[in-house]
């Protein structure tokens, strides 16, 4: 909230520089932490909790260098196949995210209008999330594959499976979140259920929905990556992780580089949701923050 106050008082450039400085500082601290830990453990020879060497903890500059080096002799630099894989996984994650968000919100709208349905269905919605995605991934991919659905689309269903849950749970809360007096007000106008939904419940639920979408944005990426693995889909980041896992002892930096790309993908999706929230919601500052 104080950040908002500063923004209105001063020119925009000053806080922007401040944020940049914070970003650089955080990166520097993380870098120093990693390298410092590595140096300390290597020079003292400590082996607890694990042996530290260039395989378990490669130098950060080596990891960054790995992006520029080809994985196989004469091949393209690692960054190219990784970006291709990231695009493939992003497609799955995004499709799954949209699918899951629509399904989750639709389910929430249905459940807030029927106490019976809410009581009857909610336990199964919760139970659905206790089933490990690793177990259902091959079933979904093979099942949909037998119907002629492409692999990446089947994986997006898995991403949707992780997305819909936080969206549904938060939206149920959000759709009920308006002031009881606001419902009385709508009743005083003899407003229809439909009007109450569109003019009161849905707008009131938006801050809750965006909170859920932020959680789901990263969950969708995880869902896509995990979904690829047991389904033996090679083109995405999940495939790359499985692949580089096998060569970890020879070339640990490739797996670390892949991890960085995975994290970046999650951040991008999260950032898109945060941006959409900023553009769409005109709330009191304390609600936005």
């Amino acid at each position, binding site marked *: 909230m104080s950040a908002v106050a500063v923004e209105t008082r001063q020119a925009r450039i000053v806080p922007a520089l401040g944020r940049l400085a914070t970003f650089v500082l955080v990166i520097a601290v993380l870098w120093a932490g990693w390298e410092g830990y590595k140096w300390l453990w290597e020079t003292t020879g400590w082996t607890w909790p694990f042996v530290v060497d260039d395989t378990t903890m490669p130098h950060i500059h080596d990891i960054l260098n790995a992006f520029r080096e080809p994985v196989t002799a004469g091949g393209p630099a690692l960054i190219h196949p990784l970006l291709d894989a990231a695009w493939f996984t992003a497609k799955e994650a995004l499709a799954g995210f949209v699918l899951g968000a629509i399904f989750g919100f639709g389910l929430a709208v249905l459940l807030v209008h029927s106490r019976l349905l809410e009581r009857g269905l909610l336990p199964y919605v919760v139970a659905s999330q206790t089933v490990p995605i690793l177990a259902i991934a091959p079933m979904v991919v093979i099942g949909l594959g037998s119907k002629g659905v492409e692999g990446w689309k089947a994986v997006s269903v898995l991403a949707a499976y992780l997305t819909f849950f936080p969206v549904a749970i938060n939206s149920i809360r959000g759709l009920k979140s308006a002031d009881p007096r606001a419902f009385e007000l709508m009743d005083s106008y003899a407003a229809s259920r439909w009007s109450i939904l569109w*003019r009161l419940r849905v*707008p009131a639920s938006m801050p809750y929905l965006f909170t859920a979408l932020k959680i789901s944005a990263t969950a969708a990426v995880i869902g896509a990556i995990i979904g690829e693995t047991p389904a033996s889909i090679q083109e995405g980041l999940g495939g790359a992780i499985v692949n580089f896992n096998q060569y970890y002892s020879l070339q640990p930096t490739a797996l670390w580089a892949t991890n960085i790309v995975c994290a970046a993908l999650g951040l991008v999706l999260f950032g898109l949701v945060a941006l959409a929230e900023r553009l769409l919601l005109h709330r009191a500052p304390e609600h936005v923050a």
Partner: protein
Amino acid sequence: MSGGAGSAGAGAGKRAAAANVVSIQKLTKSFRTGVTALADIDLEVAPREFVSLIGPSGCGKSTLLRIIGDLVGPSSGTVRVNGKTAHQARLDHDYGIVFQDPVLFDWRTVSKNVSLPLELLGWDRARRKERVAELLHLVELTGFESSRPWQLSGGMQQRVSIARALSFDPALLLMDEPFGALDEMTRERLNLELLGIWEKSASTIVFVTHSIPEAVFLSTRVVVMSARPGRISETIDVDLPHPRNAMTHEEPRFFELVTAVREALAAGHGRHGTRDAAGTTEER
């Protein structure tokens, strides 16, 4: 009670009951918890009246207002608004309501908040725009059309809420302690504004309040209630001349009436337990 019933009956005698904006007979309300919120309520409100309901907390005055608005159902008795059942009156948009909190929608601008009931009534955009401009002029908020509710002070927010309630020109305005959360200065200014609006319009107002001076200053009639169960213990006609202004507060008659309401409240309060015996001697 015979005091309250007596004067309400006399009022009903003067004017035809069917013409009354609010007509309540033998109303009781008990909650599922077994608490009796309201008992033996008879109340007639004629067109153009400004009736205040005043009483200690827990006397059911807000519940009574909600029953008139068909937001809560009565346990027994009849409630008619504009000659119809309260339910039909609500469906016909016969009343506008103002709560203690402004209950504005954060995601709508001031204009869009005021025009909410008009949207629900299916008014077209041009007509809505024209009406909103009129209303914002009336509540002195011209220039704040595209502000967000949270950018306004509490008093301004409540004026938006009043404009919204007046937007579709309902015959009846129900107000539930609308100025209760505001500071004294703002409250007095809004009292004056509300009186101005009421004098200009053809509406009837039922107004719930905690404040004795507010009730006397605004009303044509003050209905005093007592608690547990909520009953009408006395009604006091306010014969202060109109138009009223800030100087009305200085008139000796104003103080007499304030004293009368205060004594009626104290009597209602003290009657706890021996309510019935005291009620019969309470003839005005």
